């Protein structure tokens, strides 16, 4: 009985993980195929674009020669990775992707380049700071706003005043 308790806990934990939307559980093998496919696609896109450039001759390569050769090599290696994954043993450990904290951080980061120039660097980064403190560090909104304001004041002084870095100021 004593031995069964952890197993039951483990089974319950696995079941609850499967029910959750995030993080996604993807088999390492399947993930490997997806990554190899994405890399092969990247190679094909580069190859298509490189083929439109002047390839020159074998002895006197043009600007498209080197990228075309590399693109084809990328496609080839991706194929080898996929084949190796296919031939590998049946062991397929699940990998977790998209932990909520990771997704929140990535979403907040994707907003930064969109807001960086229209709102100004300090406001965009202040919003990022507040969002991360609230959703990742789990502090209260008031405290997050206070800390982000203090942080941005420090950034302005350090980068703009002391180091002379020119940051976009937005509408101000």
């Amino acid at each position, binding site marked *: 009985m004593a031995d069964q308790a952890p197993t039951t806990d483990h089974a319950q934990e696995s079941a609850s993980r499967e029910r959750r939307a995030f993080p996604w559980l993807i088999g390492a093998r399947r993930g490997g195929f997806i990554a190899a496919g994405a890399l092969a696609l990247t190679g094909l896109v580069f190859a298509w674009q490189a083929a439109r450039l002047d390839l020159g001759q074998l002895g006197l390569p043009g600007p498209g020669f080197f990228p075309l050769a590399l693109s084809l090599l990328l496609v080839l290696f991706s194929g080898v990775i996929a084949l190796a994954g296919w031939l590998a043993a049946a062991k397929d450990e699940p*990998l977790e992707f998209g932990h909520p904290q990771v997704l929140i951080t990535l979403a907040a980061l994707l907003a930064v380049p969109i807001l960086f120039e229209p709102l100004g660097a300090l406001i965009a*980064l202040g919003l990022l700071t507040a969002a991360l*403190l609230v959703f990742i*560090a789990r502090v209260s909104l008031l405290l997050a706003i206070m800390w982000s304001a203090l942080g941005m004041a420090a950034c302005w002084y350090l*980068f703009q005043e002391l180091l002379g870095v020119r940051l976009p100021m937005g509408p101000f």
Partner: protein
Amino acid sequence: MTGFDQLVRGFTVALSWKGLLYCFIGCLWGTIVGVLPGLGPLAGMTLLLPLTFGLDPTIGIIMLTGIFYGAMYGGSTTSILVRIPGEAASVVTCIDGYEMARQGRAGPALMIAAVGSFIGGTVSVLGLMFIAPPLAKVMIAIGPSVEVVLMLLALFVISIVSAGSRVKTATMVVLGLLLGTIGLDNLTGVARFTFGSPELSGGLSFAALAIGLFGLSEILVNLEKTETIKAIRPKLRDLIPRWNDVRDSAPAVGRGSVIGFIFGIIPGVSHVVSTFVSYAVEKRLSKHPEQFGKGAIAGVAGPETANNAVTGTAMIPLLALGIPSIPATALLLSALTIHGVQPGPLLLSDRPEVFWGLVASMYIGNVILLTLNLPLVGIFVNLLRIPYQWLVTAILVISIIGVYSVNSSVVDIWIMVISGGIGYVLRKLGYEMAPLLLALVLGDRLEGNFRLALTMSGGSYATFLDSASVAVLGSVLGLLLLVQALAWLFGYRKSVTDEAERP
């Protein structure tokens, strides 16, 4: 002017108030990024890159290099006190360092690690001083075809020595080379893969990619971990090692210096490989191998000395050949280029103050780090009390400003974020990022020299097999095979596997 005169001139630069101040800042920041898990020397250097823009190139490079070797010192602190490696080269130190800390002997472990680091670092700077100048003279005499052979060899070795899947590493090398072709073609001025964007005509920003692929992806992976950090706190008076500790660690320090120095030439992961090899050597030569894993001081002294001995050797290919061998020196190459200094064989004749100022500063930096690390260890450990989520927020804000400030371009922030997301996925699937970055840095010159060599030879590929190329290829390959054979002999891969399997 003799080499000694040049060194004296270098010391006048390094001992100026600016040289000392920025060397100190570099060492301090390097120690901090080494202590903090998730921030390695590369991210630390990229973050402070904007700070160097207003500085003299020599002073700027002194500071960035200080971060590089400072991180090696700092990495040992968390390995010993928390069993979390501050950076990859300190993984092995966790094994016996943490065991010593658990037995109440954290002080001697930290002291021996710091002294070993100092000795290893100093030995490697001596090597840099004596090997780089004659090597640069040889390199001046060779043509673009030999340079192509050397670069291909470096990329080949990176794929071979990788601890992970070789085909995945080779794929990352090819991807890095391919990404390096984005922008204007150097020989014809034709835009490649820019899709009409003027921001991409200069190529992808190295700083943005480095921060994204290394810093951001590491942060995202670490965010998934929820364990709290509990550090063992040593007292300052406990730092003094016993006579037995000194006796057991002295030979390990000597061997670690030699191993680190030799392995520094391996492109890719030399700083990590050297520590595993050093640990395996110490275990094999020890009269009490059973003590390894249970708090053997030689298991701390050897690897910590080795990873610092790599720092000077890793600078040799960068400064004498203009070829970076590890990601941190790739960033130094990028920084030197931003400052209008071209690393390579002509550096010593065209800008001797940069080379000798750097060499002199590395001696001074090692002394600064030795005096900085031991008394302030308590403060550095306190940094680990800051919740990781708070650190992440601060690091991301500084990273974004740092990346933007290089080209004043929002496109670089996009590159950083997107490459961070891609890096996170690829890391989880077992792809390494270091080969990609090294290939990215080398790609431009590899293609340029490849086409130049063919033009000069009238389109004959036999130029890559002329006597000079074959001689360089043969000697370098022979040396690398020897080093690789030594690594296998002492069970580097087995050590990696053993460590990976530890609970």
